[in-house]
């Protein structure tokens, strides 16, 4: 089972990895631990290192971009980010860290998408492929 969603590519790059869906806006400063590669979302610690994360948006400090950059330096960053409403803090963080950042161009239901295990950020086709198993870019 697969779902292919057309996407706006904000920061270029391909990625394929396990998908982690985070339902709440994330504050990079304070909630993203760049030493561990984890996000603390409403009391739940979620491993995001080398995964593709899907988040609704970012909240909190304007210093957050540096946290993403620190994660990249520490090799704990996600391999790709899908954001429903990317803002300057997230985009800047992804640009300086060179992490692919995609914005879906179709409406996405986070509940429905969270049943997929993998995601593939496909630059050639400007799309995101959500799947149950690993696919090939």
């Amino acid at each position, binding site marked *: 089972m697969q779902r292919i969603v057309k996407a*706006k590519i*904000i*920061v270029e790059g391909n990625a394929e990895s396990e998908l982690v869906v985070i339902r709440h*806006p994330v504050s990079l*400063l*304070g909630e993203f631990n*760049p030493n561990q590669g984890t996000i603390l979302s409403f009391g739940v610690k979620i491993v995001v290192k080398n995964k593709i994360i899907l988040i609704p948006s970012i*909240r*909190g*400090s*304007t*210093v*957050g*971009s*540096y946290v993403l*950059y*620190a994660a*990249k*330096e*520490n090799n704990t960053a996600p391999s790709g980010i899908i954001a429903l409403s*990317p*803002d*300057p*803090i997230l*985009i*800047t*963080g992804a*640009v*300086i860290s060179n992490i692919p950042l995609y*914005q879906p161009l179709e409406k996405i239901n986070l509940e429905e998408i969270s049943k997929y295990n993998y995601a593939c950020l496909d630059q050639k086709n400007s799309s995101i492929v959500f799947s149950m198993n690993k696919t090939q870019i």
Partner: protein
Amino acid sequence: MYLTREEEKIYDGERGEALQKAIRAIVKVGEALGADRLIPIQHAHVSGISYYNIGEAGYKFIKYLYTSSVKTVVYSTLNPLGMDLDKWEELGINKDFASKQTELVNMLLGMGFEKSFTCTPYLLRQPKFREHLAWSESSAVGMANTYYGAYTNREAGPLALFSSLIGKTYNGGLHLIKNRKPTVKVLLKEIEKDFVINEGVASAVGYIIGEKIGDGIPLIPLRLKPTFDVVKAYTAAAGAAGSIALSYLENVSPEYSLYANENLEKIEIDIKEIKDILVDALPTLNENDAYFIGCPHASVEEIINLYNNIHDCKKLKTNVVVSTSRMVYEAIEKMGIKEKLLNLGVVIIRDTCPIVSPAFQKRFEKVITSSGKALFYLPKQQSQPTILLKNINLRDILCRE
């Protein structure tokens, strides 16, 4: 995005790799947000200067720019550091931290930044009506847009830094009038009379609005004119608990009248909601607690207000901490207030604040403050229990009988 010939040269790397990275990041963010071109800015204000917040990765990032010999091309100021630049030892900061922080500062000053180290850059240079800025301190962004009627997005720290080197930002987001329309009308009703004079109440209102409307643009009708420090407390809380970068306050915001009659969705803040986060009764404080003002950095008037309340205290019941900018520190020094406050045992810190300094991690049993921004960040960043106070009887709270 349209680029001028000079911008294209920078984009293509003809002015060096560092400036190429800078302009490419600005263009990238601008394109994602639908900007058509770059526009000149009059002032860049950069957050992410505390080594405590940005760590080794941020240090390396800034070192790369410094060693590339790039310089600021517009008036550019810096947010607070992780320590008082001169009195760090008194704060209990360790030498390794101090050495990294000092090196970071020296690199930035070498790049042309002002020795500002404050989250209140509008007190150093007042923004002009409708001028374009690239500011990345959320509370200052709120003041620039709301109080002064200047135009700035809530920029990312590194992006404001890039803008200081290029002198431009992208023509998108809140730089465009079409994106500056209010999204919701907030009615304060019975709270209004306290809101316009009391920073604690203004903080609570900002906090609630931030949580409720996230990144919207509130329009708040008021019959009375709020004080400067009330607007400062309100915008800081709304920008911390939410991502609010612009509000329209009647009798304050220069462009309020443009939208006064817009037909908007209405929400009401009632007194019960305020009471949920604002302590009305006198808290019992002891020597392990602290009363804190200065988030955002205290203005001269706030410090005078504190002084007027406690100047005849024989002894303080609790620690009193004030964080402020160098400029305000010098002003209160000239007025003779600084010395008197120090003699009473008040701790005055410059260049930094309890939120961004390692010296304030779990330092007190509890902190009371009228700052909604401190209420939001002190527990998260410093594991510091914090209470928001309606500061009406400071003398009773702080002075020992």
